[in-house]
């Protein structure tokens, strides 16, 4: 901890802290009191995530359970290389303002690195121009990191159309004609999830899907070989990159889940006892716990 003040990020934090202190009185005056409880929740959960990230950076090793879907990505890229057929990657059908799409791009970074190492063919049609430009930048860097900048071909990442079903019509056509050996769907999907998965199955491809759209999970779970369910999509980048900081943040997320479970249990037991013993004090306490997590109508 001796060289802490040399680390640029710590310096940045110090500067930010000083600015905050100077403007603190005016800042506090403008604080929107309706969101106090949300601010507290953010501090607790966000704080835990940052704490474990920082400790992981200091070298603390954290265990992470195996997620079959993520382990299958490595194997699936290898299979595509053996069969000499492309890897199809779709980062969802939404724009860059959806954080699931950003997760899809961060996962692309690791997948592109493996594709470069295996010298396989990565094909990535996109449904938004911004996603195309960002994905090209990310993939070029990954090929560079894998030491194969020459193998990167910008033409394999291209914009098709913004229209949800126009994009589906194109990708369906690509699948049945080029017959990719592996199909990876990571990001926000809507009704088109099942069309991709069923067409992909009809050409015998290994399919790995990950999305945080609850309504689409049943279709991916039913039709794909592996499915990353909700939060697992956001953990994939940490698993694939094995970056200690990212692994640490998963520990923080687990703290968040424990926090949630504690208060659901506490609130429920309190309200049950309040109901059974008709005790005013318990009812007030139970209501306070529930009110803390209830949004005041704006």
């Amino acid at each position, binding site marked *: 901890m001796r060289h802490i003040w040399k680390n640029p990020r710590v310096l940045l934090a110090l500067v930010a802290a000083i600015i905050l202190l100077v403007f603190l009185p005016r800042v506090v005056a403008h604080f929107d009191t309706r969101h106090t409880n949300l601010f507290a929740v953010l501090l607790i959960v966000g704080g835990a995530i940052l704490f474990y990230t920082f400790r992981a950076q200091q070298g603390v090793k954290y265990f992470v359970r195996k997620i079959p879907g993520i382990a299958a990505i490595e194997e699936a890229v290898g299979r595509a290389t053996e069969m000499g057929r492309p890897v199809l990657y779709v980062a969802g059908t939404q724009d860059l303002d959806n954080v699931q799409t950003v997760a899809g791009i961060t996962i692309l970074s690791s997948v592109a690195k493996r594709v470069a190492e295996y010298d396989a063919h990565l094909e990535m049609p996109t449904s938004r121009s911004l996603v195309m430009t960002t994905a090209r930048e990310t993939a070029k860097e990954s090929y560079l990191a894998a030491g194969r900048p020459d193998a990167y071909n910008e033409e394999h990442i291209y914009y098709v159309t913004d229209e949800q079903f126009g994009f589906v019509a194109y990708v369906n056509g690509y699948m049945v004609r080029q017959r990719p050996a592996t199909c990876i769907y990571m990001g926000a999907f809507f009704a088109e999830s099942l069309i991709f998965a069923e067409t992909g199955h009809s050409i015998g491809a290994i399919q790995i899907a990950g999305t*945080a759209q609850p309504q689409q999970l049943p279709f991916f779970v039913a039709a794909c070989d592996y499915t990353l369910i909700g*939060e697992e999509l956001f953990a994939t980048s940490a698993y694939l990159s094995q970056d200690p900081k990212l692994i640490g943040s*998963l520990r923080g997320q687990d703290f968040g889940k424990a926090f949630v479970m504690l208060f659901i249990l506490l609130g429920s037991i309190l309200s049950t006892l309040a109901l059974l013993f008709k005790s005013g004090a318990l009812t007030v306490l139970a209501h306070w716990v529930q009110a803390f997590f209830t949004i005041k109508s704006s």
Partner: protein
Amino acid sequence: MIRVTLPVLLTSVIGLLLVAAFFFRGMDRVNSDLSEYFNIIAAVAFILGGGNLVRMHLDKVQRRRPGWPYSIVTVVAFLFTLIAGLFKIGNAQGWTGPVEAQGSWFNFTYDAMFNPLQATMFSLLAFFVASASYRAFRARNVEATLLLGAALIILLGRTFVGGLLTSWLPERLAFLSIPNLSNWIMSTVNLAGARAIIIGIGLGVISTSLKIILGIERSYLGGRES
């Protein structure tokens, strides 16, 4: 410096600004302005996306690569719709009329081609939901059996067959009848599963967004450390 540090710094500033705008009063314009900025950038990006689309297909035609006649169809359809829309050809009120005004060529391409194509692609789901059900709902293991059982009860519950199948149940066991059972599954087990997933997603989004804002997650700018 330009390649990683500056973009990460900008991402952090924009992210922190938006989070602050939520927790502090008097910053409402931040949200509306930044979302308009995003829409403008996404609109400008069309030039890159659309331009690349046309260049890719023209290149395919020039080099006579397999399937090049279909690229002609795409380019012609693209240019026809683009010109009809940008110049509002056939629009009764001329420049000031809404771009989708009745009678305009742009509206014709929408009604005659865009709409039926979209509706028919969407309707393929009816076929795929059937083939997926046939293939996926097999009692391979416990999880697959639960998936199958729940789907069957709900499917039966949505038809008169469900009611008939269990109408013989005595009044005391009426809660086991398929219609009641499917309502119960929807309002308890389905609710519990949905809640667990939504809370998990909430945590995942909060964690990912925080890592992006604080520059911890930067692999989208390439794996190499700055």
